[in-house]
């Protein structure tokens, strides 16, 4: 039982980590990074580390995603339409 839970969470984490690098839309990439942190905090609970799990959930899934999203707004990457446009080039 424990093994299957760990396997599912680890597979979800790795798939989301690869998705961060592969996805074109930057908003989706930041969301995938938050999914990695969330799966990691579940894994920490399974590994009997509740303090670390709470810190990772608050910081990784909460604050880190917020900081990246605010930074995206200032970098001109906050675009929901036309994801195939070249991201982040103001002079293009």
């Amino acid at each position: 039982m424990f093994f299957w839970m760990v396997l599912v969470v680890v597979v979800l984490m790795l798939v989301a980590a690869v998705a961060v690098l592969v996805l074109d839309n930057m908003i989706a990439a930041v969301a995938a990074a938050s999914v990695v942190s969330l799966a990691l905090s579940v894994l920490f609970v399974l590994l009997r580390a509740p303090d670390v799990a709470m810190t990772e959930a608050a910081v990784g899934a909460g604050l880190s995603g917020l900081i990246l999203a605010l930074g995206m707004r200032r970098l001109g990457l906050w675009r929901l339409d036309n994801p195939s446009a070249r991201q982040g080039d103001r002079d293009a």
Partner: protein
Amino acid sequence: MGAQIELVLYVGALGLLAVGAAGLVMSANLFRMILALVIAEAGANLLLVLAGYRWDAVAPILAGQPADVPMVDPVPQAMVLTAIVIGVGVQALALAMAVRIYRAYGTLDFSEVRRRMEADIAAETGIELPGSRDEPAGARPLPPPGANPMLTPEEGR
């Protein structure tokens, strides 16, 4: 069963580290480099917590259980607490620098930023850099065809 759990967890932690490291080197966009840094830090923290895990142990908190129940090692968890918070500080600083670069050069593509930065330096100081990223030592002219590369030009003639 124990060996399989161990393998899955190690593959997960090292896979995160490898994906983060590969992303850091391979990505062209500065923002994606920061995301790869986030993933690599998550992998490193998981590796630290894995070092303290103990089979059939409980969390290191006294909750009224009998005194001889084995507990996981609390020292790596304290280190990871520190590491996670420092990681978010580093991410904030990297993002602030990326905002500054974007404001100065107008693009987030790494090679484009580097090209414009070198052009700015060359324009300001008047010094042209001889090499580029693909030819760090500058252009080296090939020897003329038919010449023996083992001899000096005088002997080969």
